[in-house]
């Protein structure tokens, strides 16, 4: 433990307020600047977030793990050839490259009957999110989808993918809905956050207003089983009401609205 007299860092007298927020408050100061320790902690968080953006999805590992579970797996790429292009051309990340499209078309059902749902595992802006959360999520989700109720398309692993690549995949495979698991834009403290977008009757040009989203799936965020329950509810509703998007309100999200939060707090409770 440093003797306070030995360090030029001036601590902030309100460190106990950290209990109320994950924000980087009470960092202290060196002169008026951020102290070295806090500065390096920030750089580490930013480095992890950037690594998440630029990390390539380990598709072989994922394929092997899925094959061991007995799933048919297809790997596809978007029309964005590399990360730099992907980041600047969201339009290319929304459509399949032609080789992938041809390979995927060969996996349509023999009688060309539609699949009930296609599930896509997509790198998006964080391959870490897929690598850390996709398998646990599928292990929770797939038992909720018995073959008697759901005709599942082959699982698809997608690289350099935007959310709308799922539409192209579903059209190519002939699936009536698509659930795309995708790495969300990394935050400074959440480099591995997974999002799921569900779309009923996806077409090329489907807008985000026609999708339902489950966000922030990660160890410190939304629980895997809760996320699986939400997706199952959305899939059942989408199928029975034949729609998805803004008109399909997720009633299971009620706990999110913490409206009972008191208007008062330590700053207002009393003043001498």
């Amino acid at each position, binding site marked *: 433990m440093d003797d306070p007299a030995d360090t030029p860092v001036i601590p902030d007298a309100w460190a106990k307020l950290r209990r109320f927020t994950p*924000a980087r408050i009470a960092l202290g100061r060196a002169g008026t600047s951020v102290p070295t320790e806090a500065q390096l902690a920030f750089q580490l968080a930013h480095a992890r977030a950037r690594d998440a953006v630029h990390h390539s999805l380990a598709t072989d590992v994922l394929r092997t793990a899925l094959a061991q579970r007995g799933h048919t797996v297809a790997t596809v790429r978007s029309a964005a050839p590399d990360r730099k292009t992907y980041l600047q051309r969201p339009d290319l990340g929304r459509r399949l490259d032609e080789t992938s499209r041809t390979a995927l078309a060969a996996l349509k059902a023999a009688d060309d009957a539609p699949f009930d749902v296609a599930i896509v595992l997509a790198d998006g802006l964080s391959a870490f999110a897929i690598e850390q959360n996709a398998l646990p999520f599928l292990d929770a989700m797939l038992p909720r989808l018995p073959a008697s109720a759901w005709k599942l398309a082959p699982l698809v692993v997608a690289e350099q993918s935007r959310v709308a690549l799922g539409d192209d995949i579903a059209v190519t495979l002939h699936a009536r809905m698509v659930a795309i698991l995708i790495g969300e834009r990394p935050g400074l403290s959440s480099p591995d956050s997974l999002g799921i977008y569900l779309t009923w009757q996806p077409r090329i040009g489907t807008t985000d207003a026609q999708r339902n989203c489950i966000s922030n799936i990660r160890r410190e965020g939304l629980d895997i089983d809760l996320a699986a329950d939400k997706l199952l509810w959305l899939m059942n509703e989408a199928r029975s009401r034949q729609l998805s998007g803004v008109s399909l309100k997720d009633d299971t999200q009620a706990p999110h609205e913490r409206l009972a939060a008191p208007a008062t707090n330590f*700053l207002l409770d009393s003043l001498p």
Partner: protein
Amino acid sequence: MPRYAHTVDGTRYRFADLKSLLAKATPARSGDHLAGIAAGSDEERVAARMALAELPLATFLDEVPIPYEEDEVTRLIIDEHDNTAFAPVSHLTVGDFRNWLLSEAADEPTLAALAPGLTPEMAAAVSKIMRVQDLILVAKKCRVVTAFRNTIGLAGHMATRLQPNHPTDDPAGVAASIVDGLMYGCGDAVIGVNPASDNVHTVTTLLRMLDAVIAKYRIPTQACVLTHVTTTIEAIGRSAPVDLVFQSIAGTESANAGFGVNLAVLAEARDAALSLRRGTVGDHVMYFETGQGSALSANAHHGVDQQTCEARAYAVARKFKPLLVNTVVGFIGPEYLYDGKQITRAGLEDHFCGKLLGVPMGCDVCYTNHAEADQDDMDALLTLLAAAGVNYVMGVPGSDDVMLNYQSTSFHDALYIRQVLGLRPAPEFEAWLRDIGIFAPGEALALAQDLPAPFRHALAKLD
């Protein structure tokens, strides 16, 4: 038939129309490439600038990039153009307009008088042939002062928005970040919360809390909950204490429709806020945020480059006499502004165009984790903007916005730039900082060692 052309060493570059000329003259950025309207080569870009430099400024009154009949922002720009104010520069080309802006003839009162005579397209056009130092030098001569409970934009001053966001809008969490910011001398532009929820009950809860904090500690500043304008109108209807009305705006009617707003609803909101008469030293009640790329992302850009679209948003802003307007320059992502270089240039262009048009410009100096940018880029842009006389910047605890998941400037950053350039907070707010004991007595802006008594008492209850 191409209307504009320029020949460089025998190569004839043709530009189909005014908006194409503007787009191809723009410094390279990913959003214009994404839209397919950027120059095809560096030489074509400079050829476009040469053609643009020869264009009479008055051209922009006769030819508009988005048709008058189709777009209410164009109608606003044309209908409210002040020809008398325009007269001193009406004979100039774009190229000579740059020369004139840099000259001593273009001093502070002259530029203030000129602002209503300029259209956003004129400002955008001249910015495209200006270097970074030009953008700084001219913006520094444009002063736009506004007031509500304090005075923002005075020479030698720079304000900060205290941005105490919390992932679930928890009032105690918001209050914790407010303490952090105030103790570092931030919050004179506004204490402004981006709520996670658009629910009117949540918004009203936050508004009452902010109002109570400002009243209880007698802080000469204003509060804002940055929710949709219609939610704020509803909150005013429920007697919530609204200081400022916030709205994101863009430079085309269809992009504004994508935000769910139009000029009429902005006017309605301003009237509602004015009716509350909550300002003490002024009645600027609007707060707008903008950003290059928003029109393109809404597929509402009409083939107009993102910087010109952005300048048009300032015409919308100035119509409503705002207290604060800031571009959120790096928030939109690398498909519009790829890296630190593009973000830096865009931030300075936005600040320049806004100030030239008479808008009280601040800037959210920021980036996302998928952009090629880091804290060094933000330090550079903050320093350049402060040199250019930016009205305010953001203050986020430790630069990390834990609700919006992006990085902006911090309370520490604001103190850095105050120290380097000698910039002071709004005078009313600085007096409060001294009276309550956040700043130590004396001329220099030094933080006091001890927690001021009212805050010490508030925190003591937590033990």
